[in-house]
């Protein structure tokens, strides 16, 4: 591979890498500013940039005003969106865990992405606003022409990075910002208006995102999704800057740009660069965010999470509810068309993926945005072995689940050192590694099918053909119920108590003799296995397996849905699956289209995290428990404590226990 490389391209590709680094730097600066001051990793930063860039597009391309006017409109819009996010959705979460706030920003990401798609169209057919000519100068020593727009991107990135660093260091307001960043309570005691400082950081960071959006769009696909993903790539640059140092973020961005570009000298596979990025994320997380690092301690304090022991139920009532639900699940699909029976089967399969999050997030408190990547392992193992090599479905499914468990454990190994935000970033890196490299055409086509899909039929089970929609639905219902029962038992067993103990306090659990490493890896393995099982079933359910069905966006959506329905309850799995599959279908029968679905999910996510952070299903269950209280075993036993929020407690209520 290296021998066939055209090393004469090295100077030119260095220039490409640096200009790409300029894009990442620009995208990362607003992100770092907001994180540094407010402690919130703003997943919506790319969406704010994108939406602002579309405002510029509306003003300059559609309405015909000069590009500078478009830029100003974008800056105003970006700042306004940042203010709205902070004032109305982040500030009410004061005292909640950082992960709660991250979830809200994911909600905003979905809302802004969908809104832009609905207003300006989902596709990439948008002319970017050109502030500066794309013509440029030949870079000394190479034959590469650097466009003035690329040059401007780098200069603006450097200017913003060092300018913001200077403001933070040498101005009074900057000092206030740093004080708020270090300790908001102490800053307030010193008379600093913390809310105002937070709001300014969000407005400024978002306005910088707007500038980035307008400058970047000529170099990327101008659509509602691409810029969002660029900012997620920029996380890596921000990580190199420890999410706090703006100059180091710029250095990291340049390094990242080069790391992504150089592999293309010897490989036509565009995803090769992303494999390097993935390695870079792992390396950065491992080196800079090692246990004991100052920053990590701070995050951990903010992100204390306590999982309650499951409250006692009214057993007869619970059994009746479950029995009726299963009965409805068997009978109602009989009345539906085969298409809706198929959708019902998909919803149970997606329910298995939600269930996998119940294990990982609900029990152990480990967030994951790569569940569809685990599902992909199962799906493509089944697809390639059955569709490509004529295997029987069942051994292929077993192998798919085993491989998924293995990949889950591998992902779990670096995750042992991480939690909260950094684990979220790691799992995003995993999802993007699958999207852009592993499942991308040209990397491993005999597994992924390349640009084609694997096609396969439905198998027989114990001599009964599952080819019919209802038969296959009943089969998936059986699998789903067994999996739910297993997870429910797990959550109430000794193992479940150990997992919850790890979630509450790893130190305390370890002191009590729990092998934290083994059980965390087991949780990752079980979770990935469930997702892999879902993927393996999805293959014959659809009859076609292709990479587009297992992308990061799907992982994001299923995580969002899991949080909405309540990731602590096994009952949420069915509700989540039904919502995710039948929700868009329902919209096709209304004046709205399926395109509205992410917007609805995002909106619900934001409102729900603010109002009922434990999720919809646990909320129902709590109300149900109050309506049908369990018969007390011992008359003097006090009532169980109310369930705490999934993603953290109010700081004032939290026990004074600190992870180190």
């Amino acid at each position, binding site marked *: 591979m290296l021998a066939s490389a055209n090393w004469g*391209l090295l100077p030119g590709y260095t220039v490409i890498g640096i200009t790409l680094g300029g894009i990442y730097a620009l995208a990362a600066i607003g992100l770092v500013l907001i994180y540094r001051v407010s402690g919130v990793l703003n997943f919506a930063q790319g969406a704010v940039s994108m939406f602002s860039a579309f405002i510029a597009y509306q003003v300059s391309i559609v309405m015909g005003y000069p590009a500078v006017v478009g830029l100003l409109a974008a800056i105003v819009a970006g700042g306004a969106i940042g203010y709205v996010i902070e004032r109305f959705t982040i500030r009410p979460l004061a005292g909640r865990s950082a992960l709660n706030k991250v979830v809200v920003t994911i909600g905003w990401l979905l809302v802004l992405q969908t809104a832009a*798609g609905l207003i300006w169209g989902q596709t990439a057919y948008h002319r970017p606003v050109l502030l500066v000519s794309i013509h440029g100068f030949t870079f000394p020593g190479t034959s590469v022409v650097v466009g003035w727009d690329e040059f401007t991107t780098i200069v603006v990135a450097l200017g913003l990075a060092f300018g913001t660093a200077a403001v933070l260091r040498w101005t009074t307001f900057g000092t206030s910002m740093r004080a708020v960043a270090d300790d908001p309570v102490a800053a307030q005691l010193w008379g600093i208006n913390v809310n105002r400082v937070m709001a300014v950081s969000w407005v400024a960071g978002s306005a910088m995102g707007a500038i980035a959006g307008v400058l970047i769009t000529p170099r990327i696909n101008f659509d509602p999704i691409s810029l969002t993903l660029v900012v997620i790539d920029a996380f890596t640059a921000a990580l190199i800057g420890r999410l706090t140092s703006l100059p180091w973020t710029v250095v990291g961005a340049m390094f990242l740009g080069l790391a992504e570009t150089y592999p293309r000298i*010897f*490989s036509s596979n565009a995803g090769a660069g992303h494999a390097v990025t993935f390695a870079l994320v792992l390396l950065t997380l491992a080196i800079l965010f090692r246990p004991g690092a100052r920053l990590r301690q701070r995050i951990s304090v903010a992100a204390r999470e306590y999982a309650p022991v499951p409250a006692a139920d009214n057993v007869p009532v619970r059994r009746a509810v479950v029995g009726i639900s299963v009965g409805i699940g068997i009978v109602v699909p009989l009345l539906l068309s085969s298409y809706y029976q198929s959708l019902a089967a998909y919803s149970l399969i997606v329910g298995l993926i939600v269930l996998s999050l119940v294990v990982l997030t609900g029990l152990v408190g480990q967030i994951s945005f790569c569940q569809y990547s685990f599902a992909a392992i199962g799906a493509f193992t089944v697809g390639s072995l059955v569709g490509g090599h004529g295997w029987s479905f069942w051994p292929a499914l077993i192998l798919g689940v*085993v491989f998924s468990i293995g990949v889950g*454990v591998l992902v779990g190994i670096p995750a042992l050192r991480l939690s909260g935000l950094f684990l979220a970033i790691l799992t995003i890196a995993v999802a993007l590694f699958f999207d852009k490299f592993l499942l991308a055409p040209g990397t491993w086509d005999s597994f992924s099918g390349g640009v084609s899909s694997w096609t396969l039929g439905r198998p027989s089970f114990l001599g009964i053909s599952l080819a019919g929609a209802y038969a296959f639905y009943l089969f998936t219902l059986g699998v789903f119920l067994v999996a739910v029962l297993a997870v429910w038992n797990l959550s109430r067993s000794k193992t479940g108590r150990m997992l919850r103990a790890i979630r509450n306090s790893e130190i305390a659990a370890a002191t009590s003799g729990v092998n934290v490493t083994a059980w965390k890896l*087991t949780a990752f393995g079980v979770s990935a296995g469930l997702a892999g099982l879902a993927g393996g079933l999805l293959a014959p359910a659809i*009859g076609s397996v292709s990479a587009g069905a297992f992308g990061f966006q799907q992982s994001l959506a299923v995580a969002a849905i899991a949080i909405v329905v309540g990731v602590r309850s096994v009952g949420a799995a069915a509700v989540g699956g039904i919502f995710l599959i039948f929700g868009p279908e329902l919209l096709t029968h209304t004046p709205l289209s399926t395109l509205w679905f992410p917007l609805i999910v995002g909106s619900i996510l934001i409102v729900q995290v603010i109002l009922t952070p434990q999720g919809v299903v646990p909320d129902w269950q709590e109300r149900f428990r109050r309506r049908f209280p369990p018969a007390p075993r011992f008359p003097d036993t006090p009532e169980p404590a109310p369930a705490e929020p999934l993603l953290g407690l109010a700081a004032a209520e939290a026990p004074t226990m600190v992870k180190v």
Partner: protein
Amino acid sequence: MRERVAIVFMTLNVVATLGLGAAIAYEFGHLGRATASAPATASVEGQAYTSSPGSSSVTGTPSSGSASPAQAVSSGATLGGPTASSANTSSGTKTRPGTKTRPGTKTRPGTKTSSGKPTSSGAPTSTGTTASPATTTTQGAQPGVSGGVITVGGIYDETGPVDATVERDTVRSYFNLVNAQGGVNGHKLQLIDCDSKYDPSSAHQCAQKLISEGVLAIVGWLSLSGEQSEAKFLTDQGVPIIGGLGVPAEYASPLSYPTTPSLVTAGTALGTHAGQMGLKKPGVIFLNANFIQPVKDSLLAAMKKQGITPVDVEQVDATKADYTDIVLKFQANGAQSVAAFVDPFSYARLFQAMARQNWHPPVLGGGLDKASANAQYASGCGSSCAVFGADSATPVLEYLDHQSTPAIAQYLNTVHTYYPGQYGQLDAYSTYQWVAAQVFVQAIKDIGNAPVNRQSLVSALNNLHNYDNGGITPPISYGAGNHDPLHCFQWIHNSNGQWKTTSGWNCFG
């Protein structure tokens, strides 16, 4: 004990998964060696086309009226995009379509006959098909026909990197026009669409959905990554397909009725035209799609016949954002021209990278003539845009250059009336689907008062002979067996942002 079991199990898993990793590494490394930029030498039967470039070109502008149900053509609409020409046909000697223009070029008969009526021209008129559409439908039921409404389906990439909503709305526009005029034989027409998201699995789910909804047929679809597999699936399920992008699978079923030449033929046409243009040492770029290999083979084989050897062949994904690396590779490999077969937006990014690098070689590409994309091609590059001077081939009348031709004017005005927002997005691919809608309506008309069902539709389509759509394409005929009705292209050239037709129909195969 539990922990030990867990640890052993996980260790075994990790070992197995590392084995998988090794497989990836092996395949990736193997692939890296295999994809070194060697020009492909695969050969297929290309059509010889040996005339010299620059010879007198002719423009096929038929004078006959449209055979569509609506004869009224409103006037006054011209495209608002920067590349829209005022309503002119290209200059030069005009001939009827099908005139033999060059040695070695096969031509199609241009005789106009009454649409949809069997003739005695020797074309097969049998109504039998090898796959009976009725076999998979419910007995007694008539899929897609209910309460005086005929429902057809379409699968389109509505979200993702490729925008096929214009194709969907083109079909809807034509149906709206027909419905506004009272429908066809008392039936109103309705299109159910489904978003395939540029993803084969989503396309498959769409196909399943449309089948379950009992559509009569698929009409005028465009699903770039789904058509190749779903054309087979749908026709296997007994659903007739009319129109499409022209992927190979659409020419391999008696229930598929294409309204455009195959993309394989398009590859041959482009390769042949490359020889006429005198293209030298091209760097070649293909879209990475599941139907592209035979297209790639045909283009490279046709180039080889013309004595052209590409210096580099690259395959790109539709989501590729920056083409600077490919431009640098082409330059490093000594490319003197560019030949491409990608989607319109990918052209925009390719051209932008070329403009950025100040590299302006001759360009030949398929599907370049999209009004909105042309605005992007010419964005920010001043007078040195890569699209200026580019050449292309089109199997339908170049709509930007034939706005006064009645059939094209009707097409433009109808879309403008019903979907004004899509007017600037029209291109050759939407024209294919316009023709597909016309063919479908003509078949329904030909069914007359007989019950409309898949069998009668297929029968009417098989009887369609020399259907004249007003000259948008050469006349279309189907028959029993697989269908491949069109093989002709016109050459077009971009002159300072304006597309001009430079030849009559050049036919292959």
